[in-house]
């Protein structure tokens, strides 16, 4: 099946500043692709080019069969976007915003009546449906923005930091709604700078930094791709010998062993779930009794750091 979104050397310059730099990326139909990167990485600019709100300086993107530069009107018929900053006028009420949005997206009066209510209940704004959004908190406004996508149910849903300013319970609700949307057949392009969000929600993650795509793959594969990304901390009943330590280092996929104390080791390895049985077997053979064992997987932050030398926080500060 051809990709539903294809970016070909997509570039956007604002004067001398290159916001998006020759981006080549494909989004498969029916997946959630997380676009991860610090603020200023070029995520929002990329999304705005896909929605035809801004024009690429160079290169292009295909949304379905439509070139965003040549057939922007047709490209927009496939897309719905929930913006990073809610795009609302303060005099609006959630009911009016969603009802009008649904009308523009072609829903009949009868469908609107049902769906607007359903969506407002889903985002817990039914009781506030007639209040002006002026009085709403940032999180409530964000929920109105997300509700637009949920009512539109576009073929391609583009969501820019969908859970920013939303509490943890609300985040889980929105994640579930986005998963439901994906399961119903929508493709979701999610821009986020929240590592956990990208990790739990995305089928694949594309990491961007300074307008460039660094890497794109499934979260697990990305984590596994870091040499020595998994860390196993082992405490032994007695001290390990130098010879045993050398043997331990020879086990395939063990990248490094750090001796914190002679009976306390930090082992850096790849694909810990496969190697760990071999390590415990090794200690049994060496008659070294294991007192405790703790395993930690790399995060997407480690992946980001691996490719940029910076954590996301540091990149954001930069």
């Amino acid at each position: 099946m051809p990709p539903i979104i294809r970016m070909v050397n997509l570039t956007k310059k604002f004067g001398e500043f290159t916001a998006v730099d020759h981006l080549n990326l494909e989004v498969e139909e029916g997946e959630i692709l997380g676009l991860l990167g610090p603020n200023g990485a070029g995520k929002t600019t990329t999304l705005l080019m896909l929605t035809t709100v801004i024009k690429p300086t160079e290169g292009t993107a295909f949304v379905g069969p439509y070139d965003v530069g040549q057939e922007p009107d047709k490209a927009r018929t496939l897309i719905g976007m929930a913006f990073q900053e809610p795009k609302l006028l303060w005099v609006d009420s959630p009911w009016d915003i969603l009802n009008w949005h649904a009308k523009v997206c072609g829903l009949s009066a009868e469908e609107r009546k049902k769906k607007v209510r359903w969506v407002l209940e889903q985002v817990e704004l039914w009781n506030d449906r007639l209040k002006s959004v002026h009085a709403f908190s940032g999180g409530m406004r964000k929920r109105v923005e997300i509700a637009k996508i949920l009512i539109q149910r576009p073929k391609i849903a583009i969501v820019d930091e969908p859970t920013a300013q939303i509490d943890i319970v609300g985040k889980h609700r929105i994640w579930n709604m986005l998963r439901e949307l994906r399961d119903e057949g929508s493709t979701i392009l999610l821009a986020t700078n929240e590592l956990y969000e990208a990790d739990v929600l995305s089928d694949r993650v594309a990491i961007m930094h300074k307008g460039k795509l660094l890497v794109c793959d499934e979260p697990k594969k990305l984590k596994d791709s870091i040499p020595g990304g998994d860390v196993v901390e082992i405490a032994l009943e007695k001290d390990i010998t130098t010879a045993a330590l050398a043997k331990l280092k020879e086990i395939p996929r063990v990248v490094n062993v750090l001796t914190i104390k002679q009976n306390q080791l930090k082992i850096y390895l790849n694909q810990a779930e496969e190697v760990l049985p071999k390590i415990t077997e090794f200690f049994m053979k060496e008659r070294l009794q294991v007192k405790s064992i703790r395993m930690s997987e790399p995060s997407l932050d480690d992946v980001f750091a691996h490719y940029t030398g910076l954590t996301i926080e540091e990149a954001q500060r930069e």
Partner: protein
Amino acid sequence: MAIKPVLHIVQRDFKYFFRYKWWVAGMISMNLADLFIMAIVYTRMVNPDIITDYFVFFAPGLTITALFAAAFMIGREINMEVRREISHYMLSLPIKRWELAIGRVLAGGLRGIIYMAPLLVTTLIITYIYTSVFPHPLQFLTIVLALFLISIGTSGLSIALAVSTTSFEKYITARGVVYYVLFFCSTVFYPMNLIQTALPQLVLLAQYNPLSCGADLSRAFLLGNPPFSPFMLVDIALFALIFASLATFAYMKVTQK
């Protein structure tokens, strides 16, 4: 062009206008108060040899003033939308760009007409009291058509300014200049013979000014003076066509960087 998307846009902008219903009611009351202040004060101040009854002369002009102010409001809203990037939302909708632009121009024009309606009724009553004649239905329809076209042109002018100015301050300044030039160099507040005498340099501008044509066209059918000329309607139609097209073009090009 599909009519539905245009109507959706018109409906949205129209609804926003009436969200400020108390403000609108207040403004209409102020316009009416202006008219009656004219009746009491200016009529006694203005030399009757120049303008026989300033109150009656000014009433059709006031409808133009109100129409212009109301139709111009759409520009302020669009300028705010561009600054707050609400325009990004509008541009991301599954609507063709020119349908969006035309919808906004049309909405601005309709807002002007609706706002001006009570003032037009008041003007009809006042001129009836003065002349004892109601305009012929065709004349009345011509007045409404002319006012609608002025409203469309004004809406277009304000949108073109709104999307071409980068800050609110610049927009307000540009709006002030446009107001000043268009009203000062027009027959909205004073007749052409006065301009010919006092400021002959402005005669040409005043003649072609669509606000002059609108005010004089109304006076022609309501008061019988100056005489109606088809040029008035052509001038107004050109104003509407030029600025509606300019606004559509500017909105399409400038809002999409």
